[in-house]
């Protein structure tokens, strides 16, 4: 009965509008299910604030729906670029408020790990590492399963100087991947999930995570939280 309720609840969430702006990708997807989604993606530095609504409009136009038919929003919630996350979250909040629909905040690294599950064999271990300023990086290690992932090391901020010792003989994704000399393979250009995988993460793991009271939600600025915790 609980399962049925959950499924019924999730069915009311689609089509979901997914937004990804945490790093180099400025993208949106109108997602119905794995066999039917419409994505729009732009890679252009310093353009997220200018282009996100174009990306959203394009995805909605491609899907041939009216925007009022969107049932929920899945937004990439970080970690990532402070500016990028704020742009995505602001767009999500504005649309959610005007349509009176909920937001699901999707953990960005987990969505990327989930995307990579469909590419790599089961049990492959990968690291995702993206820059925080000049001397630190966001770091997480995952074991990929067939349609899921396990955290091998939790998401954290580490000094750049520790990066090499923590990540030998693994596959590394992220915009600092090339700085690691001991990796098996570096994918420096894959540092954020595609927008449809933000939606797929919400589809698979977002049940019960819909937020209707959106006034106080904010992205996962880990760095900011650490500082605030230290000071209080």
């Amino acid at each position, binding site marked *: 009965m609980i399962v049925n309720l959950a499924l019924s609840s999730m069915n009311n969430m689609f089509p979901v509008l997914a937004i990804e702006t945490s790093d180099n990708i400025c993208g949106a997807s109108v997602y119905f299910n794995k066999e039917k989604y419409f994505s729009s993606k732009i890679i252009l530095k310093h353009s997220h604030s200018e282009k996100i609504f174009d990306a959203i409009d394009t995805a909605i136009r491609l899907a041939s729906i009216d925007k009022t038919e969107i049932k929920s929003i899945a937004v990439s919630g970080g970690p990532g670029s402070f500016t990028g996350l704020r742009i995505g979250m602001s767009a999500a909040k504005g649309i959610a408020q005007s349509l009176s629909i909920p937001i699901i905040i999707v953990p960005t690294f987990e969505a990327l790990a989930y995307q990579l599950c469909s590419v790599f064999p089961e049990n492959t271990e990968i690291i995702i590492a993206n820059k925080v300023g000049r001397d630190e990086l966001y770091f997480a290690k995952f074991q990929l399963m067939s349609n899921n992932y396990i955290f091998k090391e939790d998401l954290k901020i580490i000094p750049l100087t520790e990066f090499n010792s923590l990540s030998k003989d693994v596959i590394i994704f992220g915009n600092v991947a090339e700085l690691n000399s001991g990796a098996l393979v570096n994918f420096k250009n894959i540092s954020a999930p595609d927008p449809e995988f933000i939606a797929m993460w919400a589809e698979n793991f977002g049940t019960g995570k819909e937020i209707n009271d959106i006034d106080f939600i904010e992205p996962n600025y880990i760095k900011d939280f650490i500082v605030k915790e230290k*000071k209080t």
Partner: protein
Amino acid sequence: MSFPYLRKSASEQDTVLIAEEFASIIKKGMIIILNGDLGAGKTFFIKQVLQKFNVTNANSPTFAIVNEYIGDITFYHFDFYRINKESELHDIGIEDYFNDEQSIIFIEWGNLFPEVLPKKRIQIKIDYNDENDREFSFIEYE
């Protein structure tokens, strides 16, 4: 100019020459900290450096916290003087500015929040005795 470097300035014209010399060695990706008391000439020095890159609208960012100038290179000019706590710097996304290695960053009063500063940086200290007696010390941290 090689670091550490020490220069005395006995006039505004001397300071202009020091700024021009410094401008000739700075490159994209550098983070430059300027420390010195009020009136030491931090903003004046930066204005002179930026003129060499065809930036003519440089001004004190004391109230704006950060100014952006686009000349031959993009510059970000911070002033930490009015910042009360470190979290305010994270609230304006300072990491994103540091991540932009295609720009040059100047930070006045960087000594107020040393824990935020990247390890690799150039630090300039201006000691001000009177209008005709200033000392500029340049140190490079790796």
